[in-house]
């Protein structure tokens, strides 16, 4: 479903991803863990086309995201191609990023109407179902500022799902939440992960959650995958010393 092929990403002189290769199968839930600054979020941002690769290719569903062919040459993808590809990918952000000038329902229906061309009625029906799923049916007319962080994040999840993405990217979605609100958001995500065939790529510091829902966990360090294993294996008997060190540091805290 997702394939990174020799992806290089630099910010100035700083190399964030160095020739990164990995694949994610359709329907898989893959979690990226690792120290901050190791490039996890950059991977999601590249997939969401919020950043461009410096080298290498990214494929989504067999189709090249980053490049298109022009004659017999491949060139960096233009905005039109990116816009088409984006429709298959959704993202939930650490800071929610709901639109404050719209109410909850409008936040969710905006993209299906404007981008997919759904009628207002269809989009609203879809939104109401999703709000029900995230447990916020009574908040359709509320404004984001009237909601708690956890509620805002659940709306953001519903908003991303309203586009019926094939891939959903979760970028530290609970990091900005008060501790008591984290569980509600994770419960919703777990339900979606188990009841849909969406492919998930998740960056998180919630190790218990990663262990619960992931099919695979990839440990990241300095722009490379240093360990890639099933969660039971990676969390109980990590092979790489760097993974052991990292898990030790984050799990000891709890």
């Amino acid at each position, binding site marked *: 479903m997702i394939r990174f092929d020799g992806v290089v990403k630099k910010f100035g002189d700083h190399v964030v991803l160095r020739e990164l290769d990995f694949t994610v199968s359709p329907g898989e839930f893959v979690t990226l863990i690792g120290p901050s600054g190791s490039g996890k979020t950059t991977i999601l941002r590249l997939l*969401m*086309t*919020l950043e461009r690769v410096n080298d290498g290719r990214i494929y989504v569903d067999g189709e090249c995201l980053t490049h298109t062919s022009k004659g017999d040459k491949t060139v960096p993808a233009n905005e039109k191609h990116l*816009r088409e590809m*984006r*429709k298959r*990918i*959704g*993202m939930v*952000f650490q*800071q929610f*990023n*709901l*639109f*404050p*000038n*719209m109410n909850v329902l409008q936040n969710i229906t*905006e*993209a299906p109407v*404007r*981008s997919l061309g759904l009628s207002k009625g269809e989009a609203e029906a879809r939104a109401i179902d999703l709000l029900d799923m995230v447990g916020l049916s009574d908040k359709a007319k509320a404004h984001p500022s009237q909601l708690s962080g956890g509620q805002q994040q659940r709306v*953001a999840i519903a*908003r*991303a799902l309203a*586009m019926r993405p094939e891939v959903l990217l979760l970028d530290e979605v609970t990091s900005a939440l008060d501790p008591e609100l984290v569980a509600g958001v994770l419960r919703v995500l777990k339900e979606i992960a188990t009841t849909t065939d969406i492919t998930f790529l998740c960056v998180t510091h919630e190790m218990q959650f990663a262990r619960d829902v992931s099919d695979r966990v990839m440990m990241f360090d300095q722009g490379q995958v240093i360990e890639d294993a099933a969660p039971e294996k990676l969390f109980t008997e990590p092979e790489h010393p760097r993974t052991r060190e990292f898990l030790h540091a984050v799990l000891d805290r709890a």
Partner: protein
Amino acid sequence: MDWDWENARDSLPLLLEGLLVTVELTLLGSALAYLLGLVFAMIREARIPVLSQLIYLFVELVRSTPLLIQVFVIFWLLWPALDIKPSAFWTGVVALGIHYATYTSEAYRAGIQAVPKGQWEAATALSLPRGRVWTGVILPQAVPRVLPALGNYMISMFKETPLLLAIGVVDVLARAKEQGAETFRVIEPYTLAGLLFLLVSYPSSILVRRLERRVGHL
């Protein structure tokens, strides 16, 4: 120095007629400045190669030269070059509108830049069309913040309209001058003209200040 009440009373109708012209100039000029300024700001913020730089140069040029010179350039150079002949009034509207558009564009830009980057990213992630990102997400957040600044520019513009005397727009000040020339008494009409300006701009500035407080709560 004595004050002639009769002359004061006689000049009032003319002055009010002039005031109407001044207000019309201000409203039309502001409408143009608000619209054009928004276009300038959006082009600059969208970072369109060449076009954005051209707008930048134009804005800097207009901002660093006097309005009076711009009025003359439009009236004596631009219109003949285009082979059209708008009235002095419409020349005034265009000149004020363009001049103030360069200021309002900076205000709009500040408002646009104050919208968090995450809003752009969320809009991109939802594949909203470019135009809709502006009209649905960015501007509804950016514009309310800059309304007080826009209101202040309207008040400044109102006070600068007498400049258009130079090309023969008959506003309050022109009417005062007329009355003065007729009766050889200039104190009353000029004083009243000044008072009329005060009567309009002071309450307006109070309104803007109130708007500022409301925006502060956004």
